[in-house]
């Protein structure tokens, strides 16, 4: 597995804490993501992994701590600002736009790149049409890459789960993100689908140099794909390091075996 070229830090999470009423989902979590790497976040159910991603892209605002992304520090930002800053995301429970086709879902991912406003789009003529075609070209590249040509016009609600996850990845890629957050991209997939998805993730990382943060329960996949792994348990970071280091860490083994705290 190719290691990232630089040690430049793309995202720094510093002392983040988050609570929902009595539930302390995250407690003083710090870690970083380096430019170009695949960074895994693992942990048992309810460990706070999804909450961590939600904090990173501004959907939740941490009670304490700060996030530094591309050198800019902020305690809270709006999801829209995160997206504009170059953070894209897929979701644990597929969050596609159910009433739209696969193609339209991915095209929606281009929104931030659209320049022509309402009046031009209404006329759909000249430069507006040219722009639309241009975006369509980009999206077709992604469709080819993800091998979903056959289903581009199908409403996503009618697609099987595995394909929905693929479309969702496509939608995130259409944003041409600098940081891609993947929340259990392989949950509920069979072996073959998992292999496809792993291949896509590695390709995205290799070809586009996209930095990826990955939550995944399948340890084999995590060990294969990631450069570095952070482990959360009950909202606390209990280990951080290369896959091998983490695998041998006693605290991690205990957490997964469910040793009482």
């Amino acid at each position, binding site marked *: 597995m190719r290691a990232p070229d630089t040690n430049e830090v793309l995202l720094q999470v510093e002392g983040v804490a988050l609570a929902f009423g009595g539930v302390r989902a995250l407690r003083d979590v710090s870690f970083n993501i380096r430019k170009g790497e695949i960074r895994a976040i693992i942990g048992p159910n309810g460990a706070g992994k999804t909450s961590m991603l939600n904090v990173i892209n501004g959907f939740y605002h941490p009670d304490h701590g700060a996030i530094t992304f591309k050198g800019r520090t902020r305690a809270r930002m709006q999801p829209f600002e995160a997206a504009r800053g170059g953070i894209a995301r897929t979701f644990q429970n597929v969050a596609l736009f159910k*009433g739209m086709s696969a193609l339209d879902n991915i095209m*929606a991912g281009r929104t931030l790149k659209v320049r022509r406003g*309402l009046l031009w789009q209404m006329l759909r003529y000249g430069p507006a049409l040219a722009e639309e075609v241009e975006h369509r070209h980009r999206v077709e590249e992604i469709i080819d890459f993800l091998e979903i040509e056959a289903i581009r016009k199908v409403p996503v609600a009618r697609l099987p789960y595995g394909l929905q996850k693929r479309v969702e990845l496509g939608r995130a890629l259409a944003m041409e993100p600098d940081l891609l957050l993947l929340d259990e991209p392989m949950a509920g997939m069979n072996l073959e689908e998992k292999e496809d998805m792993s291949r896509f993730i590695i390709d995205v990382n290799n070809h586009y140099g996209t930095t990826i943060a990955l939550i995944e329960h399948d340890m084999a996949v995590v060990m294969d794909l990631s450069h570095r792994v952070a482990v959360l348990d009950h909202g606390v970071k209990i280990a951080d390091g290369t896959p091998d280091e983490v695998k041998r860490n006693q605290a991690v083994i205990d957490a997964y075996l469910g040793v009482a705290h």
Partner: protein
Amino acid sequence: MLYRETSQFKTTYAEDMAIFPIRQDRIALGVLLGIAFIGLPLLATFHIWPFGGDYLLWAILLPFLILALAAIGTNILVGYCGQISLGSGAFMAIGAYSAYKLATGVHIPLAWLGFAISIPPLPILASILLGGLAAAGVGILFGIPSLRIKGLYLAVATLAAQFFFDWVFLRVPWFTNYAPSGSVNAPELNFFGVVVQTPIERYLLCLTFVTVTAILAKNLVRGNLGRQWMAIRDMDIAAELIGIRPLYAKLTAFAVSSFIVGVAGALWAFVYLGSWEPLAFSLDRSLDLLFMVIIGGLGSIMGSFVGAAFILIVPIMLNLIPTELGVPLSTETITHLQLIIFGSLICYLLIKEPRGFARLISIGKEKLRLWPFPY
């Protein structure tokens, strides 16, 4: 000629992105527009069946076109952007009364400042379009709560618009130019020197408005803005996380929708009713529009036409068929039956086919495309 899209290989994305990628659909639309713009007026001019009198034009086609226009507007907000509206009637009223004021001249005395705002009477086309703009402005205002509140709550915000403007146009005499009865008369429909008077002229005027609006609306909903609206409708949180600004998406939906509804309101008042009272734009009108959209198809421009036709035709049929059969129904029974039919149809469609008749039609076309080998 069979209904096929195979053999029509699309060489560019631009072709694939045309409104009707299938040639047969384009031909059908062309024929339809030909009939609407040329055929019908000819038949009507020469009083050929079914245009014996003006009944068909006045009582069916004219309201059909204007309501279809209003339904397109409602559909953009409800069907495409997923923001429920029980206040479309109010926005028709805003369009109508603003256009009326602009066409008859605006005079606002600001006594305490020592001067008055006066706008001379504007040409009719400008009045109608500015009436639409006024509706769009108010639409944005009432859309602002939608940024903080979701779906159902918005129903109450739009009800607030409905009841508040019902009251405004009833109680503030300025809007009716102090007409003692509260009822006002439309100004002369003079479009650049052409005075629109006869039913055929009125029909053609509305047809032009509807056709142009339908095309522009169709362009919007299949472009990026339309995708933003649908994304907000289907999953607003995910939409925001991929860089769609809810503020922009929702408020443009409110603005565009209210503009179209407002223009429809102005046409309804000026071209169809001629003279009207605030009652013409009550909550019933709002619910009618909502029904057209649900029945015709949420998120379908074509569905708006189907829905408008259906809502208009059912009461006429309820009147006609029993009379033909020799058992005429009382107007009251017809009203009640109509309520029951619309109500049950709404429930049925929401359960079986939320995309309405439009979806049923496209399923039919799908079948036709595969015919005679359905695999």
